[in-house]
């Protein structure tokens, strides 16, 4: 059976909190996993005495165990892949596409539409 590294949602309504778990793919989301290797708190937080308005997200992770499970073939889900790639355990899967040179849409004639309205 496939072993996955995925998130298990705990917390409350509108107050999500995730355990980063290693579990068999076919087991229920919140069932007892093989191992809890960390947590992910998706709600952005402020530092106590910081007035700059910068926000951060807290993640706890046992990197050694994460590396081990990757090494033995556990498959991270996309979200976990993104988190693990941030600490350099995996290559990033999705890279932000280079910004395309934007061609502006043709400007509608400034006098066109309003003049129509006024005439009708």
């Amino acid at each position, binding site marked *: 059976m496939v072993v996955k590294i995925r998130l*298990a949602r*705990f*917390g409350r309504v509108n107050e999500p*909190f995730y*355990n*980063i778990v290693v579990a068999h793919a076919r087991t229920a989301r919140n069932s*007892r*996993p093989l*191992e*809890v*290797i*960390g*947590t992910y708190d998706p709600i*952005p937080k402020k530092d*106590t005495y910081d007035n700059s308005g*910068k*926000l*951060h*997200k*807290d*993640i*706890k*992770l*046992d*990197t050694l*165990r994460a590396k081990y499970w990757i090494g033995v073939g556990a498959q991270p889900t996309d979200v976990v892949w993104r*988190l693990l790639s*941030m*600490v350099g355990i995996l290559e990033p899967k999705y890279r932000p596409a280079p910004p395309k040179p934007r061609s502006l849409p043709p400007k509608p004639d400034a006098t066109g539409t309003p003049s129509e309205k006024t005439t009708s």
Partner: protein
Amino acid sequence: MREWMQEKGEQFREHQRDGPNYVTGYQDKPFPSNPLFVSEPVLSEESREEIWRKVVQEGEAIKSVSANFGVDMRRVAAVVRLKEVEKAWEREGKKLATPYARAVMSMLPKKTLSKYREFEPINEIHVHSYTQQQLFLPTSESRHFTREDAAKAFGDRILPADKRVPHPELIALEKELLAGTSPEEAQAAFEKAAMESEVAAAEKDQKRRQQEEEQTTRVPASRFEFRFKEINVDDGGKDGRSRRGTGWRYGVPFYDRRRGEVKIPTKVE
């Protein structure tokens, strides 16, 4: 009721004098049918200013300010913190609700600081629940049974009273005075010890923060900074159900919203 309001109650319609004006006529008992309730005096405005000045401007240790004025250490720290907020607001040009504060203060029993009369008891020991049990411990008569031994008898991790007291420096001060040191010297030694203990506490805290920082990787990504803190899976114990483990626990009820649980913050970070 109306009769009372017209005769005796008239004096309570407007607050006239400085200090409390309770229905009971006593200075410290606001509720006529509950004489056991005593309204405690608060620190006057000048006293709070004085505490702030001593700590921030003169750089005295919080412990020694606390001991000199007989104000609890936590109260001293809180006064300094709130005064700092007040000063910051003044610097920012925020408008303070001074008339409101003055009105409330004029209705409360107040106490002004003095070196000779303490504001509140400061050196009380918190009673550990382990020490409330009755304990019979047979020992030999010749044994010198100290407080350390008593603490050990109550539990392996119970500290003796001398170590749990908030101001152990005050005990040292009294001992020195008994030994015949001059009061000035003893006071100087006390101030030094208080400052040292405060510096040690600050250093310990600094070290803890640094250690935490070392275990954290900060990744600036998108709108937010992601902070990865290193943990150890084994903290959860053999069955993964220990309280020290990371994450939501499995098969254990989470009682954070149960009646009687404290749901408000209990400390300032």
